[in-house]
């Protein structure tokens, strides 16, 4: 063990609150060999566009990229489920040598005539970036052949980080926006952006807006439909949840269509309430909306107060570590955990930028470790050092935490339980409790169990 050390080059990606006067190193390509928890450009595009349920999503490249992303998000659809299928041009050696354009064209012919989708997305993977297939030209040709949008997503794996993949996805969506009719869109209308309908969360949020009197034009991209996205420019306001992935699109829409945007979050009571209020404030010409929002927040909080008190009594004083994809989610989690009496001892993200980390520093308690683009060696070291009770992360972090006798809550895109909105807040507390209060930990080694 003594020969193992953390990487020197990564030191500046890690901050401890006492030394907060230094800047964190972030928004950089991953250090080779550091075992980052990040994926690639393709991953960024794929996760953002994935929930669009009436389009076919064709991955152009060898089989891996499509196979590993088959039906991996818990994004629900109220209708078609084309997004849950995995399509690949499955390029083999011959096509890598002679080019994959013919196969791509044939694949699109096959998919569009079989499934009659409302659009097709073609994701370029690493190989395509090297062999130089003219994906745009093929998409154009197929688009005019079938009369549907066929969109080339520039998601070559090595050309940047996951964030560049988000940007490519935003560009693809932006191509669709503005092509549909905005007839009959009421004045008090919004687009919900960066909400992927994991476990039906978009439906929960939409129901809130319906109740307070706001019309939702499109959700990008949870339970997404091409037609709705095409008319998104008819909305009066964009509300951006997962800001890491969707801010670019919000900015593009502001520039071109003059639609303002606000950043919101639906995790934790405080942020859910704030989000609803800030949207209501935007539509101040109709004070009924604000009244409705107040009423809704009051009712929902009252409804769960008693149960939440119980969870709080069980969770008070526990320590949590958070490691998430985008930093914006971490802000809400810190507030939400704090309201449960849980302190955050480590907070990190795969793709946070300087501004995100500034906010994170302001939010965190003294002594908190802040970490960018972490790896298992760093995460495991710090969660043990900080005597963490609970880890909030995704599948890759789960076994690490559990091996070390640390409770776990999956807050990533594979979960089946909604954690957004008021009911999500309750589910969150319940899930944390079910992990932390489980009797199994007493047998684990790190809790001095284990031996006979």
């Amino acid at each position, binding site marked *: *063990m003594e020969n*193992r050390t*953390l*990487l020197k080059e990564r030191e500046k990606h890690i901050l401890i609150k006492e030394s907060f006067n230094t800047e964190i190193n972030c928004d950089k*390509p*991953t250090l*080779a*060999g*550091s*075992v*980052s928890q*990040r*994926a*690639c450009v*393709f*991953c960024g595009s794929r996760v953002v566009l994935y929930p669009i349920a009436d389009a076919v999503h064709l991955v152009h490249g*060898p*089989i*891996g*990229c499509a*196979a*590993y992303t*088959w039906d991996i998000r818990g994004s629900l659809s109220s209708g078609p489920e084309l997004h*849950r*299928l995995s*399509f*690949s*041009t*499955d390029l083999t050696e011959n096509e*890598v040598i002679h080019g994959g354009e013919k*196969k791509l064209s*044939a*694949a699109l*012919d096959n*998919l569009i005539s079989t499934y009659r989708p409302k659009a097709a997305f073609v994701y370029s993977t*690493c*190989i395509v*970036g*090297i062999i130089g297939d003219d994906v745009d030209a093929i998409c154009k040709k197929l688009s005019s052949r079938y009369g549907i949008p066929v969109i080339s997503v520039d998601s070559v*794996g*090595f*050309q*940047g*980080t996951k964030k560049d993949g988000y940007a490519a996805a935003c560009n693809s969506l932006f191509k669709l926006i503005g092509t549909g009719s905005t007839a009959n869109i009421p004045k008090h209308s919004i687009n919900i952006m960066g909400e992927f309908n994991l476990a039906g969360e978009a439906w929960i949020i939409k129901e809130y807006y319906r109740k307070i009197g706001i019309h939702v034009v499109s959700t990008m991209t949870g339970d997404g439909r091409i037609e709705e996205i095409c008319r998104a420019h008819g909305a009066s306001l964009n509300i951006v949840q997962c800001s890491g992935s969707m801010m670019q699109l919000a900015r593009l829409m502001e520039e071109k269509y003059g639609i303002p945007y606000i950043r919101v979050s639906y995790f934790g009571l405080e942020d859910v309430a704030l989000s609803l209020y800030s949207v209501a404030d935007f539509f101040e010409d109709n004070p009924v909306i604000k009244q409705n929002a107040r009423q809704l927040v009051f009712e929902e909080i009252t409804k769960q107060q008693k149960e939440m008190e119980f969870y709080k009594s069980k969770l008070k004083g526990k320590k949590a570590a958070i490691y998430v994809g985008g930093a914006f989610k971490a802000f809400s989690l810190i507030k939400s955990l704090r309201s449960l009496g849980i302190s955050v001892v480590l907070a990190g993200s795969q793709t946070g930028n300087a501004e995100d980390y500034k906010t994170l520093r302001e939010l965190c308690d003294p002594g908190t470790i802040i970490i960018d683009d972490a*790896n*298992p*060696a760093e995460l*495991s070291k710090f969660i*043990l050092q900080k005597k963490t009770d609970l880890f909030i992360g995704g*599948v*890759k972090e*789960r*076994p*690490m935490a559990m*091996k*070390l006798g640390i409770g776990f809550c999956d807050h990533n895109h594979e979960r089946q339980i909604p954690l957004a909105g008021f009911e999500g807040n309750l589910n969150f507390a319940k899930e944390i409790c079910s992990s932390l209060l489980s009797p199994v930990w007493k*047998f684990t*080694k*790190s809790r001095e169990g*284990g031996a006979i």
Partner: protein
Amino acid sequence: MKDVTKNACHLCAPLGASLVYKGIKNCVTILHGSQGCATYIRRYMIGHYREPVDIASSSFTEHTAVFGGQENLLKSIENVIQTYDPDIIGIATTCLSETIGDDISMIIKEYQKRNMERTRPVILYTSTPSYRGTHVTGFFKTIHDVVTQTSKQAVTNAGQINIFNGLFSPAEIRVIRTIVSDFSLFPVIFPDYSDTLDGGSWNQYHPVPPGGTSLKKLSSCGNSAASIDFSFCQKDELSAGMFLKEKFDIPCFKNAYPIGIELCDNFFKTLSTLSQKPVPEIYTQQRERLIDAYVDSHKYLYGQKAVVFGEENLVYSICTFLAETGINVVCAATGGPAGSISGLKLNDYFNQTSILEDCDYEDIEEWVIHNETDILIGSSRGNKIAKLSGKPLIRCGFPIHDRIGASRQEFLGYNGTHNLFDQITNTIIERMQNSMPANYATM
């Protein structure tokens, strides 16, 4: 050749390589390519094994793709040494590094030149572009390549035999070890991820989990008296055992996964021949019990229609086993290449088996929708077909992402077959019971 693959029944070759490297003691994998490859494969393996899986990546950027991957790979090696201090680094290529034409052996030579004073780690590599073969061929190729790079021959050790595993579960690797040891043979088992991918709880983080085949054991492969190689459906060029046969004249027995009486008998007879010992009583008893169970259950099973899908070797063995029980294998499907299960001979009663090779889950779904089926046997990726058709799915193979216990699944040997057999029989009985108007108390 299809125009488009829909819900692939195979994964890419670097996953197979990563799995093999997890079976080497104190070894860390570097995938030479984009960061995503390593992360996706980690996620996929973690979902199945529910254990930490650290895989490093040389994290290509645009610059790397233009100027070659040498500096990134060298940097990854340095960083992995610093963080993990491994005895072995296993490098596997990806489609990206192969297409730009990186020469890994040259880069390793460059590494050695720059680090003359270092005695460890040993650097191994394999070429696994995802546009060639599948995770299964990647798995066997990596076993082959590791053995070609590590094995040496000194003095033949009469009691030592090589066991080159198939895609077995950790529990199955433990079973194979016990069986071989019970013949008083000393096995070199490779790959052995029985501990690295199925361990206990920890009080400190193990960057490289304990367990695996040691380098010392691997290099002694050339001294073994024989090899048993489970790359049964693979070409000889992917067989480590066949390599040792050619290079050191070590006899090689290419066995199918031992599932069912016939295939288990083959395996036990091989061990009996090699050890010159009769099959230990404990196994003859297990065999008798299995036959007894076949007899007890034959009426439930006769003519039941099964669809089996997954990697070619597992499909081959499960179909052969099912045919012994009177179950009618109506469809045997694999994402493996054309010809990989063509050797499958099923019993004479039912000669209507559809063989689907190089297929995807969409092909299997189509088949199940248009034909009569009673039971599905294959990976958890068949859950969509199970839901759609309303047929029960017995989960086996890789991946199993929607159930617990994939690491403990044990279907090899007489007892392992018995586990699978009881599961299948009870599933069929349950269906019969539920479909009858009376809720019979005895079945």
